[in-house]
């Protein structure tokens, strides 16, 4: 009894709060248009007329509803819509959209406000201009304000007041608004016709000037974006190749199952995500991704250790046999993953990695890509520190350079091999973890990346970490540079051709290893 009473109370409380919020959201808009919530007789009549069969009556009613209505009409209109035929639904759609968007201009969610502003700019009526301006004046979020101002100007540009149009064109040029380009283009065309009036010509002149400013900014923004894309692709290539650079580059083991180690990392991430879904409160969900990092590294490293101890150990110095054996292992792993996990598994990116940041007009940087860029830089620093600043790294380098000498000096080469291989595998696991942000998690995941990773390591020069870094930057950058003009298919083809030509000239890659090791 007591408890249910309590629950009732809290329910009522929530209801009251929700009602207040709703009132705040819609009421403040409605207040200035109309004080009382019940529609005037005129609007009441319009609501009836809208259902009329006659085209003229209906159009007039729609116009009236847009000009004089307010958000309080929404429930009534929804009701109409629910049992309307298609033509009526089409007729009242602009009314509903207008009022819903206007209400959304003051929504607490920035994305909703922005969507509403953009929609009003695209499909709205001139009546929306003051609403947008008022909302923009109160707006604190820079890019939402930009969208509001832009939409107001777009509507002004579409109006039939030449002075206002010219002013809007100039302002839109100032704002470098990409959305305005088609409308401005239309004005230029209208002004270029033979029957154009003087007014139209002047307007066309202003529009042309605005287009020029927009286009020149476009060149800049695309340059920045292309640069960013190149860096982003490079960072992905780099993070994929780092593990391989150690396993193949330093140890000389051609591990065809390296891609599948990435797959293990990705599936480890998936398993951690599922565990969080099952055992932890929902508010913790976003942190699953960080918890998955050690899981992915350890899972892949452990598997690498097993792989080294059971297969690769017996095949050191026999590259062909290693290749065949590890290829077999990769096939087994792919099929095992397919049988156990099915074909596609969904990884939900944590909410803090969804979406992106707008930094300039037309320049949008997705968070997941920024994250991977940061991660690859951190990984490189970590690997350098480990290899060149620690005693383990010293041993690894010693064994790589001269195995027998190291053994003579008392370095346990077997152990060093095992650890190095496990570390390289763990890095593959981290790559798999990071790649869940941009791609699929599926059994064939490794196959998609393995060719690219080998390409990067070979181009960079086997055995040189710096080579791997430069090569991934070069290949990623070049790829993104060529893609806009050549398309994805030929861009990729050309990259492969370039790599082949390059390796013809320098078979040992960018950074050739010199000295005794090179011959042996």
């Amino acid at each position: 009894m007591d408890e249910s009473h309590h629950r009732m109370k809290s329910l009522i409380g929530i209801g009251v709060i929700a009602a207040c919020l709703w009132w705040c959201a819609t009421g403040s808009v409605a207040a200035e248009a109309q004080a009382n919530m019940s529609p005037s007789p005129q609007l009441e009549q319009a609501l009836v007329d809208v259902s009329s069969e006659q085209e003229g009556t209906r159009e007039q009613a729609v116009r009236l509803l847009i000009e004089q209505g307010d958000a309080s009409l929404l429930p009534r209109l929804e009701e109409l819509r629910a049992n309307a035929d298609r033509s009526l639904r089409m007729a009242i759609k602009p009314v509903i959209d207008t009022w819903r968007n206007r209400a959304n201009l003051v929504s607490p969610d920035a994305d909703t406000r922005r969507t509403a502003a953009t929609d009003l700019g695209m499909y709205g009526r001139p009546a929306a201009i003051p609403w947008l301006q008022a909302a923009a004046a109160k707006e604190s979020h820079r890019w939402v304000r930009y969208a509001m101002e832009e939409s107001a100007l777009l509507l002004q540009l579409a109006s039939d007041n030449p002075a206002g149009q010219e002013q809007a064109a100039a302002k839109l040029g100032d704002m470098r608004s990409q959305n305005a380009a088609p409308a401005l283009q239309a004005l230029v065309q209208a002004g270029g016709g033979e029957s154009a009036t003087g007014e139209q010509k002047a307007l066309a002149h202003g529009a042309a000037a605005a287009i020029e400013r927009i286009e020149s900014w476009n060149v800049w923004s695309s340059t920045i974006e292309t640069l960013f894309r190149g860096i982003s692709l490079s960072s992905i290539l780099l993070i994929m190749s780092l593990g391989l650079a150690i396993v193949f580059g330093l140890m000389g083991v051609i591990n065809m199952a390296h891609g599948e180690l990435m797959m293990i990392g990705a599936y480890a991430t998936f398993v951690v995500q599922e565990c969080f879904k099952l055992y932890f409160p929902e508010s913790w969900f976003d942190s699953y991704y960080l918890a998955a990092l050690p899981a992915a590294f350890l899972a892949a490293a452990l598997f690498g250790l097993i792989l080294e101890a059971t297969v690769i150990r017996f095949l050191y110095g026999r590259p062909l046999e290693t290749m065949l054996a590890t290829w077999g292992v990769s096939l087994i792993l792919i099929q095992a993953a397919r049988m156990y996990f099915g074909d596609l598994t969904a990884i939900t990116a944590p909410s803090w990695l969804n979406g992106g940041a707008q930094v300039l007009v037309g320049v949008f940087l997705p968070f997941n890509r920024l994250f991977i860029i940061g991660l690859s830089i951190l990984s490189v620093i970590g690997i350098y520190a480990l290899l060149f600043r620690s005693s383990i790294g010293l041993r690894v380098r010693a064994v790589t350079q001269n195995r027998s000498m190291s053994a003579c000096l008392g370095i346990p080469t077997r152990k060093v091999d095992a650890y190095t291989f496990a570390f390289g595998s763990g890095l593959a696991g981290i790559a798999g973890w990071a790649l869940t942000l941009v791609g699929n998690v599926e059994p064939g995941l490794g196959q998609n990346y393995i060719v690219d990773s080998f390409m990067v390591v070979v181009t960079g020069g086997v055995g040189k970490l710096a080579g791997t870094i430069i090569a991934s930057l070069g290949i990623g950058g070049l790829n993104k540079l060529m893609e806009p003009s050549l398309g994805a298919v030929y861009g990729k083809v050309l990259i492969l051709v370039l790599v082949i030509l390059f390796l013809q000239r320098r078979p040992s890659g960018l950074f050739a290893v010199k000295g005794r090791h090179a011959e042996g």
Partner: protein
Amino acid sequence: MNTQKPHGDEIQSSMTPNDHVPSRRDFLVQSSRTVAGLGIAAVLGNLGTWALSWGADNEPIKVGVLHSLSGTMAISEVSLKDVVSMAVQEINAKGGVLGRQLKLVVVDPAANWDLFAEKAKQLLVQEKVAVVFGCWTSVSRKSVLPIFEEHNGLLFYPVQYEGEECSKNVFYTGAAVNQQAVPAVEYLMSKEGGSYKKFYLLGTDYVYPKTTNKILRAMLLAKKVPAANIMEEYTPFHHQDYQTIVGKIKKFAAGGGACVISTINGDSNVPFYKEFANQGLRAEDAPIMAFSVAEDELRGMDKTALVGHLAAWNYYQSVDTPQNKQFVANFKAYCKKNNLPDGDKRVTDDPIEAAYFGVHVWKQAVEKAGTTEVNAVRKAVYGQKFLAPGGEIMMDEANQHTNKPVLIGEILKDGQFKVVWRSKGLVKPEPWSEYTNPDKGCDWVNHQGTYKKA
């Protein structure tokens, strides 16, 4: 009966050379025995053949399944094998076809196009199956087509495809281009669909997207869409990096009125939709209309980036008919009972439905024809109607394809579709598009397949 068969004599003498000259009595006894023996043998033999033929009448009819169970296409094709097995089980539970049970012969062509041809040959020549249900990609269908034509086999192909084909050995239960892509684009151009004016045709680089986009481009130009408002772009299979393309779409969509027509296939979809959302594009700015994304693919995707985008199919799991509810429940129960991966979390979609009713249409046709002989069955399939889960369908009277409804759906959070538009009645299939091949038709009743329209 003549007992003095010289033949018998010869046998006798040859059997006992120089050893013992047979008396007349001996001879008589011997030969009568032989004859009796022959007679009994003959009777037994007859019995045997009769028994055999009786047995053959009750011997199961072999039905082939030619879907990749491993390799890159397994993700999509395994479900089709499952639903075909389910349909066969349903039919067997109701007494089979012509009083005979159906027996599945499942082979795995492993998404390898050469292996498809090899396995098709095995099914037709070695296993002598009455019919084959199979293939997903167009390239696999193209690779088995000559085999089916050479051995006069029968293939039920359940996936939407690019058309421009008219083989009498294939029944196409999926959509032709005019039953999916064309109405979808017409919808987007309509006031109800949003009156879109700019079209970005984006696809994976192979025959289905290229042919579909060729038809769509011809159609858009015919509808007076300026060429500058149509963009066409392809990516390789397994393409992962959609940054540049999404950037281009963003520029293309500036100012509004733009939509994306996606024929991206398989595992490239997730990176594409993710990048699309992450670069700040929304379904309201530029919706993506996809022809290769269905419930079964959505099952394994993170749906947040896809909500609000569109797809065009002939069936959705959410279609509200009593037979569909039953079908969905049966399929889930079947997957659970047979311990298939994901069990009762499995979903149905358009190709699954098309594969399912294909089996039933074949069964009805065999019953009408009274035999499993391919030519007779083919004639019986024409005009065959079946109450499919998504509503009644009708096999075309002459062109090997299926009359189906067209549905536009919006992707929801749970990976299901909300139907936002539905064609009036069934849409007649046109394997040769009126936009790219207006002079060609497909007819196996009044013509010999593809013919030139007068």
